[in-house]
Each structure stands twice: as structure tokens, then as C-alpha cells.
């Protein structure tokens, strides 16, 4: 991949929680349109890495660049821009429980992007069609299944037209059937050329959809490479063991 094509550039990132070093010199690059899966055991630092890229955590060393803007250092002036470039979807959906589906989606459109109510509503209808929930426009989050809530959360992020979507174990709280419907939406996004970084336990999904696989272990990028290659040829015992236990 050509160097200047990278939309996310992570270099030597160090993240510490008190005395605990969670990320220990992590680095990789993501090209536009690429789908990246970050896998690894619990505690390997993969979710923390994603939260750092999203600007939700400060970093103690290294650099993170998203669409050319530095992330994670205190007082980053580019924070507003980062918010425009990056969409984040969480394991626990984090919809706003007091607002209906439409308002969940239009809130940031009207407040942050200053779109008119009508334009925001139209956008909400559009993104809901993408995730197959047109009929839930006026429902409240608690009236939806977990899978539906997660699809609304994806739609809410998509409505802001981000350059990159981050997914943090978005199916971990869902049963297999609901997991499938959320993964289908994500696969569809990947096919449409959205740049995606996904922290996941769904090895089948990673294998099917991700072009780049990152295996995290003990706060480091332990193995990285094209997904098919890595699965066919694990270079480290840790990764071989990991895919052995997950599949």
C-alpha cells in the first residue's frame, strides 16, 4: 500500500493506566477503503487501541494520525475535525434512551453539522434504510432488540458521513442470530468501500471481510498481515494457539 494513502497511521503508541502499560509501542497503517480486524485475547489492549484512535483516551507516547490530524495529545485542536472524520460504534450500543431512533440520529446532524431539521430527517431515513430499520424511525431504544439497537447506533454514526468507522466488539453482547444481522450490515459497509477498523471476536467475520488482520498480544502488535495469509501461515506460536482456540 502506498505510504500517502494511509488514512490512519499509528506509530509506537504507548498507553498507560497508572503503572500498567496497556499499549507498548503499537504501530500499523490503514489505507483508504481497507477493512481491518484487530483480534486478540481479553486484555491484549485491542479495545484500548481503538479508543485511542477514536480520541477517547490520551496516549503517553508515540503518534496517532487520522486523516492527517494528530490524535490523543491533550489540547488537540483537531478534535472537532476528528469527530467529523471518525465514527465510533460501541459494544453497549450507547443509544440515547430518552430520544427516539430518529432523534438519536438527527441530534448531531442538527447540533454539530448545523443541518436543517428537514435535511437531517431525510438523512436519518436514508441511513435507516441502509441498516434495514426504516420502520423503527419513531421507536425508542428500549423497544428494540439488541441487534436493532446496534444497527441504529451504526446508522447514527453513518449519518455524519465519517471517513472511517471504528467498531469496538459491537456484537459481543448479542446472541448469534442478532450478531449475524449486525455483521451483515458491516459487511455491506465494507463492500461499499468504507474504511473500517473492527475489534472483534468473530473470527469468521474477520476472515471473510477483513483485508488486514492485526493480532494483538501483551499490548503489542504480535502479528500483522493480509488476513488469508496470516490464517494460512501463523508465524508465532501465540497466534497459532489463538486461532486454534477461537475456531
Amino acid at each position, binding site marked *: 500500500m502506498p505510504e500517502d494513502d494511509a488514512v490512519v497511521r499509528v506509530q509506537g503508541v504507548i498507553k498507560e493506566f497508572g503503572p500498567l502499560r496497556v499499549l507498548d509501542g503499537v504501530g500499523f497503517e490503514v489505507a483508504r477503503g481497507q477493512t481491518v480486524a484487530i483480534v486478540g485475547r481479553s486484555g491484549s489492549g485491542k479495545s484500548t487501541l481503538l479508543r485511542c484512535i477514536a480520541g*477517547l483516551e490520551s496516549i503517553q507516547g508515540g503518534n496517532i494520525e487520522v486523516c492527517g490530524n494528530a490524535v490523543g495529545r491533550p489540547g488537540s485542536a483537531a478534535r472537532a475535525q476528528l*469527530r467529523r472524520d471518525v465514527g465510533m460504534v*460501541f459494544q453497549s450500543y*450507547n443509544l*440515547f434512551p430518552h430520544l427516539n431512533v430518529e432523534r438519536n440520529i438527527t441530534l*448531531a446532524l442538527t447540533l*454539530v*453539522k448545523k443541518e436543517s431539521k428537514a435535511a437531517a430527517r431525510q438523512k436519518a431515513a436514508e441511513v435507516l434504510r441502509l441498516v434495514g430499520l426504516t420502520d423503527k424511525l419513531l421507536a*425508542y431504544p*428500549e423497544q428494540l432488540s439488541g441487534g436493532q439497537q446496534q444497527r441504529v447506533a451504526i446508522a447514527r454514526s453513518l449519518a455524519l458521513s465519517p471517513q472511517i468507522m471504528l467498531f469496538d466488539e459491537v456484537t459481543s453482547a448479542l446472541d448469534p442470530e442478532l450478531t449475524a444481522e449486525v455483521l451483515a450490515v458491516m459487511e455491506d459497509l465494507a463492500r461499499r468501500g468504507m474504511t473500517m477498523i473492527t475489534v472483534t471476536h468473530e473470527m469468521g467475520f474477520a476472515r471473510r471481510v477483513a483485508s488486514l488482520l492485526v493480532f494483538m498480544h501483551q499490548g503489542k502488535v504480535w502479528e500483522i498481515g493480509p488476513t488469508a495469509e496470516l490464517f494460512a501461515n501463523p508465524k508465532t506460536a501465540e497466534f497459532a494457539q489463538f486461532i486454534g482456540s477461537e475456531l
Partner: protein
Amino acid sequence: MNQLGTNHLLYLLVAAQWTVALSLIAFVGGSVLGLAIALMRVSKSGVVRAIASGYIQLIQGTPLLIVLFLSYFGLGIIGLKLVPLVAAGISLTLYAGAFLGEIWRGCIEAVPKTQWEASDCLGLNRAQQYTYVILPQAVKIAIPPTVGFMVQIVKNTSLASVIGFVELARAGQIVNNSTFEPFVIFTCVAAIYFALCYPLSVASRTLERRANAGR
């Protein structure tokens, strides 16, 4: 000595209106102050948080009676003579502000941290996060304990009687001084307080049940 009559009862009821008025002043003033204190308590600035928590500790650690003495007699000595209604209104506002501030801080912090993160990721600034995401959820959590605290305010207005403000408790003393029927009179006074507070208690319990049952 006068015979206890309906005009005495009427006098108590008129005085009860002042109890209600003072309660409303304390509640409205305390709400405005309390919201400011609550927001200061969850501020990003350590200095602002320290000021708010110092205020809360000061008021919570001082008897309301002493606050009343200070604002009426104390300020009077240094030349700032307040009428009893104003002195009592200020004292109760200071008192309610500290307690409501602390109650509401808890309610704001009870909104999950993930709501902050989600709204942050959508690009909302801090004021927008409060206005559209955090406070609407905090208000729902806050209603039962707030209504419960209103009962405390109503009862504590009786302390204003010591600075000569004629509300329900003071009116009871005055009627008693002329009729000397303490048992009957103060039973009436208690009954009127009860009539004011009981509906609030019931409302608080009902709201709490409803909040626990979800939206």
C-alpha cells in the same frame, strides 16, 4: 384568656399560606443555586469543584437555625437589616441549594459514562452534551429524591419562626399565647403540616416506583 374559635383556625390557615410561600421561595431559589452547585461539582476544573464542595460541607455542617440567626441578626448588626421573609428566604435558599446540589450531582453522575463517550464521538461539545443528553436523563433520576427533599423544606420553614416570621409554627405559638390550649392548637398545626407534606411524600414514593419500573 380568649376562647379558641374558628377565627383562630382561620388565622392558622392564613399563616400556612406563608409557610407555602416560604417553601416555594426556598425551592425555586434552592433549585437555581442547586443546579449551579451540581454543575460545579462535576466540573472539569478542580478549583471549581473544591469551591462547590466547600460550600456544601459548610452548609451541611451548620444548623439551619444558625444560618437564620446569621442572616437576620448577624447581618442586622453590620447594618444590613433584612425583613424576616427575606432573611428566611435567603437562609432556606442557601440550605436547599447545598442539599439539592449534592442530590443532583449524584443524579448527573448516575448517567452512564458511556453516554458522555457516545455523544463526544458524535461531536457534541460539553454544553450540548449536558443540554441534550446528560441532564434530560439526570432529571428523570432526580425527580423522586427532589420531591422527597421538598418535604424537608416545608418542615424546616418552621425554623423561620425564631426570627419573628409569622408562618404556621409562629402563628401556632401566637394563638396559644392568647388561648392557652397548647394540645389542641399544636395538634392543628401538626395536622396542617401533615396535609402539606403527605401529598409530597406520596408523590415521591409513586415517582420512585415509576422510575424503577422504567420509562
